[in-house]
């Protein structure tokens, strides 16, 4: 993005918040329906809400599930490439499993893993690991055949081909999977908290809903968004260092 691009992006966000504030004032919306941005932000000062505990728990669940998804997803993709026949047999199964709505599986997870931080991590993991496997696998196998011929003529072994060509070549694909997964991981952790939990922003949302405490709910929503943006921003920063900076198109 250019300097002007950044300016537009900030302007759109500020504009949106101003519009929200104005609408609440002009239309005189009761604050239990839609609190203004100012009322929402004010909730952060209320220490009885234990914001930091809830935020910390949700952050742990998201980042934990996400990290697991990357480790397991990449490892599985590598296995698919390395073990002959594994891809042919397991990939169709994986695609089928991917069709199972993970959110609908959450209640089952509670039965299997009980509830708490780790079970919610697992829900976040299941929901976001498919895109990682699929994109990484594709990146590993999509290599120019002549490039393989070129290094095979030099008697390169399989490991050299993997380390020097396939693995770095799959990075742009991995990053596109990681961006999709980042969004899914946030949804997964919050859904897990909805189903059963004692802590976390999803749990907090449900409790405040019973009290019709809309502004606190909105504040929780803002915090969840902030965690998601931090994660997404981190991925974009890594992608910049490894991919974009070098002019590689994804």
């Amino acid at each position, binding site marked *: 993005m250019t300097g002007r691009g950044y300016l537009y992006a900030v302007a759109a966000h500020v504009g949106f918040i101003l519009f929200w504030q104005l609408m609440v004032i002009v239309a005189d919306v009761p604050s239990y329906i839609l609190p203004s941005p100012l009322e929402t932000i004010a909730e952060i000062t209320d220490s009885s809400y234990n914001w930091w505990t809830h935020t910390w728990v949700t952050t742990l669940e998201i980042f934990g599930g996400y990290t697991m998804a990357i480790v397991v997803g990449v490892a599985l993709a590598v296995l698919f490439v390395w073990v002959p026949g594994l891809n042919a047999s397991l990939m169709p199964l994986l695609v089928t499993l991917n069709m199972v709505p993970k959110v609908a599986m959450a209640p089952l997870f509670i039965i299997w893993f009980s509830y708490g931080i780790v079970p919610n991590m697992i829900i976040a993991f299941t929901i976001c690991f498919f895109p990682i496997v699929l994109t990484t696998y594709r990146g590993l196998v999509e290599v120019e055949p002549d490039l393989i011929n070129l290094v095979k*003529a030099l008697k390169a072994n399989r490991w050299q081909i993997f380390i020097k060509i396939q693995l770095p070549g799959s990075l742009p694909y991995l990053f596109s999977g990681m961006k999709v997964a980042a969004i899914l991981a946030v949804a997964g952790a919050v859904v897990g908290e909805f189903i059963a939990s004692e802590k976390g922003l999803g749990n907090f949302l449900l409790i405040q809903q019973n009290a019709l405490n809309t502004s606190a709910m909105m504040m929780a929503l803002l915090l969840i968004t902030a965690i998601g943006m931090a994660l997404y921003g981190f991925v974009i920063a890594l992608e910049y260092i490894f991919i974009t900076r*070098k002019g590689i198109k994804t």
Partner: protein
Amino acid sequence: MSKMDQEPFVKLEGVKKIFKVGDKEFLAVQDVTLDVREGELVSIVGPSGCGKSTILSILSELHPATEGKVQIGNEMSPFTPGKDIGMVFQKALLLKWRTISDNVLLPAEILGLPIKESRERARDLIEMVGLGKFADAFPQQLSGGMQQRASIARALVHDPRLILMDEPFGALDALTRERMNLELLRIWKESRKTILFVTHGIQEAVFLGSQVAVMTSGPARMAAHFDIDLPEPRTLDVKTTEKFGAYTKEIYHLLGMD
């Protein structure tokens, strides 16, 4: 240099290649007979599907010949498979995540050559192909012609005895292609390498080669070859000579295109 003074560096005799796909066999190429002296640049020209690339893949040991004799190296110049092969393809095939100098270094890494010396050699080669200013650039920042120069430097970095080029300038625009032809002749002179140059450009084949082998398709075979007796060093003026015209005409004729 007459053909008699030395044993050829590359000797192909009655080479035939049949590929098997399932139960079906199909003939990729046959009747390939070719002698290439050390330090010679030989063109192989022909239409698509005539088996040109198959010859290169046999020489680089990617696929063994089904029949015939393949010999590379002689007593004076022994040939080590792997180490002594450099390849250039139609696509530059540079690794996007590596700088030009790290790309050029790839064969040295694969062969496990001492990295410090190889780095120096890579730098000299990048200079030689005219990319000195771009050693630290990434391939995406370079034009097609420049990328192909880098891939030529890469083919030379491990100091191989034989360079195989598979339509290396086929994807370039006409003017860049002419410029690259002159560049290749200069690089060839400086590096003293044996080069096999596969192309479907008849003019290009005659302009570059001291020999031209002509391949035809249906069935894919080596139909003829010519010693090209044109003044050295070759300049673009050569293309306007009567002799050049006669050679190209004869090849067009052999390919049934007149």
